[in-house]
């Protein structure tokens, strides 16, 4: 295939400039891995919109902005950090891709049977575990952004839950970009390992100081072993001028249960991959909500790879696009020849609120087995005029009526969030965009 790749000389030079100061630069296997990724990145670079998978998302601004990797974290208001930490969680906090022990839950406060740590610490204490997980789930050949991440990642979380262990509290991993005033690039890598029959809930959140322009390139690799149950929420509330490229790559062993949800509100351009490889009789749920305004561009790509029989998957993404924002959804369900009795459903619903907003959606089925049930549905529409009329006849003004209905559209996804502090955080984002809905947080 003839594909035009973007020039990436600047990013290639970044890789060579940081070779000797990166995490684990004394470890030969890691250096080897980084070298391989760097070579691959030089070869493939950033994807151009001529590539089928990127045809709706243009990453040229990332190339042009020439983001640089900060050697240490910038300063962030203590109050800002505290405001993004959810109650009732264990915390791991990173600023500009560097670990912040002061804000993170100390190891002594963690229950037994779990490892919640920064990669920078684990690489010395648990090198074998890091080695077994790192780069074990992402597809090869990887995307340019994944290669760049592998070549350059500065830190990230490693979370491992031992067999038969249930973690009571959710674990929040917060990534914050500082008010650096410079074009910074944070490359973070998270490794999550839910061992057999364990249960855990992990929340990744991404925040930035308003009006800052930076690039977050965050990859999470997840392994869910047999009979384990893992919930993973990802809240993206970056600065409205930032760029966010992220991905959650997961592998489910037999009877594993994985529930991954994305809530996307921030960044001027964002792209989030959620890919899962499903083992026998596993169960995977991918949910998402994206709410765009101004000129925001939000792209979600999901891929459910049914490799083994008897697995089920559910996918439900909802989008609200206002002003001149653009939403992109691509969902792909692949059912291998051996994956008989697969049951897979995908749904994508979009609400367009302005005549300059745009939605591009590509729900795809790729099926090689005959005894399967697969379905997908897509809708794009606007608010129901009669519903607006009904509310107005009850005394709501037009804006309020519309906000109420828009809120209700989004609320279907919010209601699915079981953990209350996260639900409130998502609600905050929603109510900020659609005020006067007559909705009070206290009611929830």
């Amino acid at each position, binding site marked *: 295939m003839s594909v035009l790749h973007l020039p990436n000389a600047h990013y290639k030079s970044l890789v060579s400039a940081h070779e000797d100061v990166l995490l684990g630069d004394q470890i030969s296997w890691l250096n080897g891995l980084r070298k391989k990724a760097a070579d691959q990145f030089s070869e493939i670079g950033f994807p151009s919109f001529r590539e089928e998978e990127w045809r709706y998302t243009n990453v040229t601004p990332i190339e042009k902005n020439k983001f640089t990797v900060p050697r240490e974290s910038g300063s962030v208001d203590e109050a800002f950090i505290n405001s993004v930490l959810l109650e009732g969680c264990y915390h791991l906090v990173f600023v500009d891709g560097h670990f912040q022990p002061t804000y993170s839950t100390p190891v002594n406060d963690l229950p037994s049977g779990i490892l919640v740590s920064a990669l920078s610490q684990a690489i010395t204490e648990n090198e074998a575990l890091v080695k077994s997980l790192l780069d074990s789930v992402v597809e090869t050949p990887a995307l340019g952004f994944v290669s760049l991440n592998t070549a350059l990642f500065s830190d990230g979380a490693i979370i491992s839950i031992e067999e038969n262990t249930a973690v009571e509290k959710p674990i929040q991993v917060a990534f914050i970009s500082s008010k650096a005033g410079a074009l910074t690039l944070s490359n973070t890598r998270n490794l999550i390992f839910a061992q057999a029959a364990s249960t855990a809930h992990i929340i990744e959140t991404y925040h930035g100081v308003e009006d800052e322009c930076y690039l977050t390139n965050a990859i999470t690799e997840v392994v869910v072993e047999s009979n384990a149950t893992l919930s993973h929420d990802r809240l993206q509330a970056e600065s409205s001028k930032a760029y966010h490229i992220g991905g959650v790559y997961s592998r489910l062993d037999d009877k594993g249960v994985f529930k991954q949800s994305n809530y996307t509100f921030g960044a001027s351009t964002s792209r989030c991959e959620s890919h899962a490889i499903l083992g026998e009789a596993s169960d995977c749920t991918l949910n998402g909500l994206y709410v765009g305004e101004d000129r925001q561009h939000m792209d979600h790509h999901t891929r459910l790879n049914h490799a083994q029989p008897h697995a089920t998957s559910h996918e439900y993404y909802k989008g609200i696009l206002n002003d001149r924002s653009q939403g992109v959804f691509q969902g792909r369900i692949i059912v291998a020849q051996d994956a008989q009795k697969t049951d897979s459903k995908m749904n994508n619903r979009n609400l367009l609120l302005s005549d300059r907003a745009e939605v591009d959606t590509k729900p795809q089925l790729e099926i090689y087995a005959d005894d399967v049930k697969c379905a997908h549905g*897509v809708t794009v529409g606007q608010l129901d005029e009669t519903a607006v009329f009904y509310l107005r006849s009850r005394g709501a003004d037009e804006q309020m009526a519309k906000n109420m209905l828009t809120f209700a559209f989004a609320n279907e996804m919010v209601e699915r969030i079981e953990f209350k502090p996260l639900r409130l955080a998502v609600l905050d984002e929603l109510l900020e965009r659609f005020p006067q809905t007559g909705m009070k947080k206290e009611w929830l």
Partner: protein
Amino acid sequence: MSASNENLKNMIGQDYKDGFVTDIESDSFPPGLNEDVIRALSAKKEEPEFLLEWRLEAYRHWLTMEHPEWSFVEFPDIDFQEISYYSAPKSMEDGPKSLDEVDPELISTYNKLGIPLEEQMRLAGVAVDAVFDSVSVATTFKDKLAEAGVIFCSFSEAVKEHPDLIKQYLGTVVSQYDNFYAALNAAVFSDGSFVYIPKGVRCPMELSTYFRINAANTGQFERTLIVADEGSHVSYLEGCTAPMRDENQLHAAVVELVVLKDAEIKYSTVQNWYPGDENGVGGIYNFVTKRADCREDNAKVSWTQVETGSAITWKYPSVVLTGDHSVGEFYSVALTNNYQQADTGTKMIHLGKNTKSTIISKGISAGKGQNTYRGLVKVGRQAENSRNYTQCDSLLLGDECGAHTFPYIETKHPSATIEHEASTSKISEDQLFYCMQRGISAEDAVSMIVNGFCKEVFKELPMEFAVEAQALLGISLEGSVG
């Protein structure tokens, strides 16, 4: 379910029934493609200067293009220099004026296909412009059509007799630069059909063309242009069969439909070209560009297709809904068996206000067939209140085939309402059990279910075609379908 397994085996073992070769001396160009070939072709067809220039422009542009790789089909590279770009039955040089003058061997070819022209002439309501290889050999019912003012003739005849119309409309829907195969077609198209329905005329009969590929190694590059002027209506039927061949044959046709104010075109296709043998050897490569332009208000286009043949089918009959209140419809049944590959679907481009489109696509995969639906629904900035409904269903028969769905939905207007649904399933044990406990045999039950699966599309076909389509499905799925 052993009964259906046996049915599947029978089905897979089914031979292509229309495979035979007629020995007629052909006047062919040696294989190869360059500007001289195009000039010679144009000269042979006594074309005006503008058309030659148009062809050459297309050829020069084609040279700069790369072969597209994005589709979900696999085939060896095509050597375009090994194809002969012109082949005409020799006995055509004198130009038969009536059926009696037509080479009797041709007539018998059609007889073998079950479409005797004599009989068709007697059958009311169908005029046939039969294309044998690249040159029209028989045109019927011309007088009756002329009476209504309808022009229905071969493309080369139209170039000679109605050059103004050709100049006005040729390439306005599918330009000579459109895509790799459309550019190739523009450069070397040999013949095809031209239809013009004047203002306010409802075409008195259904128009039909049988395409046929005969001479070995001859790529067929048909070009069809249909213009429906204000307030007119036409139903056009296109059907294809081809003789059995070992070598792959390339077919890259272009169909352009121009629909003006309040006019309607209904375009139906039954395609049964040679699909290759059970090992995937041979078969036709069918890479077609079909597009309609609803250029003015209230225009309507309806594409209906039944695709059972070809080794590779690669076509997306599209509608550009430019005029306000215009309507586009697409109904399709695509069947792939053995090693057949189909990557087909439609594009509905909503540009005008209050435009509507409907897409119903049914894919059936059997054997080692790969069946892909690929469709685009695009709503432009000005397309207020546009409406689309899409339904793509796939049926899998056997565990070595594949069914894929790749819809693209791009919406730029909030008042648009778009619905897309797709499902993939096999014939369920429950459905079979229900039928069988009512005393219906397994085979009849499978037949009922498959027919029911396709019914929404078959009911859109004109009567004559509906019968043929059902027969084709029957041949392709014999053993499963009664």
